[in-house]
């Protein structure tokens, strides 16, 4: 089984928001970054993986299992970290751990103790006195202490300062020393992903725009800038999105080599970073925006 998570033709309406016929996979043994703007559908999918939200149609499989028959087995294998704290604020971390630990068959108390030491988490302090960073670390300590094979994280770094964020990434690198672990992490902070993610899945308005490994992204995607006279029906087909202005156009391509051959030195062609890819992917080919 190659995939830790598999969504097949999933439909879901939640108020004005819709997922239409969405399919995606998350490779086992790797880190997949799940990126997209606010309201793109990341959290909805994260929640479907945990059966907090159920699809109207389609299939969600985790390690080949479906929630309908194997809900508990699936959840045993998942460690989760959400950006909002799921703890009872009045309890201490030890109390909270004592509530959660018996829920998992494979709870490993010594591992939890180690993480608390490493993260410098006070066990006897009410959780309401924890900083956001500490709460996230506490969630992570719990997520990592029951031998979960899949760690899903929904915007874990949103409320954290850069130092904390780096620390988190460092810990996740440690987790990935074990080839049986899979991390699926939704974020809109691109720097979190650059050193960690193996695959990037990009979602916008409930649609998967692309899902690629980081090398493909690095090699294939580029930003092209040039004069408007370069654009015609033939050349436009090489672009995912084009932004026109009076001084020229800026476009995103996922076919670097062809575009280099096509335009040569007539246009400026630069490798695109993740943020640029996201920004331009959302633009479409309309000529609406000017700079």
């Amino acid at each position, binding site marked *: 089984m190659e995939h830790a998570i598999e969504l097949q033709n999933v439909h879901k309406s939640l108020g004005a928001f819709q997922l239409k016929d969405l399919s995606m996979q998350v490779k086992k043994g790797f*880190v997949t970054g799940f990126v997209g703007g606010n309201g793109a559908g990341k959290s909805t999918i994260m929640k479907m993986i945990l059966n907090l939200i159920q699809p109207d149609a389609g299939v969600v499989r985790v390690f080949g299992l479906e929630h309908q028959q194997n809900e508990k087995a699936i959840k045993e294998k998942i460690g989760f970290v959400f950006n909002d704290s799921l703890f009872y604020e009045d309890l201490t971390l030890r109390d909270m751990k004592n509530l959660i630990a018996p829920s998992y068959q494979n709870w490993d108390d010594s591992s939890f103790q180690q993480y608390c030491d490493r993260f410098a988490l006070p066990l006897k302090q009410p959780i309401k006195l924890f900083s956001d960073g500490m709460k996230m670390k506490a969630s992570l300590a719990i997520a990592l202490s029951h031998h979960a094979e899949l760690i899903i994280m929904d915007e874990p770094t949103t409320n954290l300062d850069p130092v904390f964020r780096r620390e988190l*990434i460092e810990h996740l690198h440690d987790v990935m020393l074990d*080839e049986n672990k899979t991390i699926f992490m939704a974020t809109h902070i691109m720097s979190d992903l650059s050193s960690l993610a*193996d695959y990037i899945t990009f979602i916008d308005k409930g649609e998967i725009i692309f899902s690629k490994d*980081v*090398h493909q992204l*690095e090699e294939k995607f580029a930003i092209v800038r040039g004069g408007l006279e370069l654009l015609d029906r033939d050349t436009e087909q090489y672009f995912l999105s084009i932004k026109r202005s009076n001084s020229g156009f800026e476009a995103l391509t996922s076919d670097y080599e062809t575009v280099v051959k096509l335009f040569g030195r007539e246009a400026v062609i630069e490798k695109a970073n993740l943020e640029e890819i996201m920004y331009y992917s959302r633009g479409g080919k309309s000529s609406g925006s000017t700079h």
Partner: protein
Amino acid sequence: MQILISNSSKEPIYQQIKHQVKEKILSSELREGDALPSMRQLAKDLHISVITTKRAYEELEKEGFIYSITGKGSFIAEQNPDIIKEKKLATIEDKLVEVIANSKELGLSLQDIKEWLTILYEER
């Protein structure tokens, strides 16, 4: 095994790893049977994604520099001395070609290069 990568280099990171491992093999710093760090350990140490080290190792394996045993790790493959020599010659050739190209750009003649080369060769 020391590997230094640069994030600002134009060369992709997996290439940087490949090149450095190759260099270490060619300079005999790494010898047959030496164990390489695991893909995942190296990724962690270098703060890069696993898929990057995976690609570097896969390509090194394809080119015959290393071999992998599932569950044990990756090791330096037996290097045929002739092949090593050939590879070293190939690198020299590459560099000379580069020198020629650069020299032509500046309009240096073959004679100029030869003289320069002779001076440098005798100095070392």
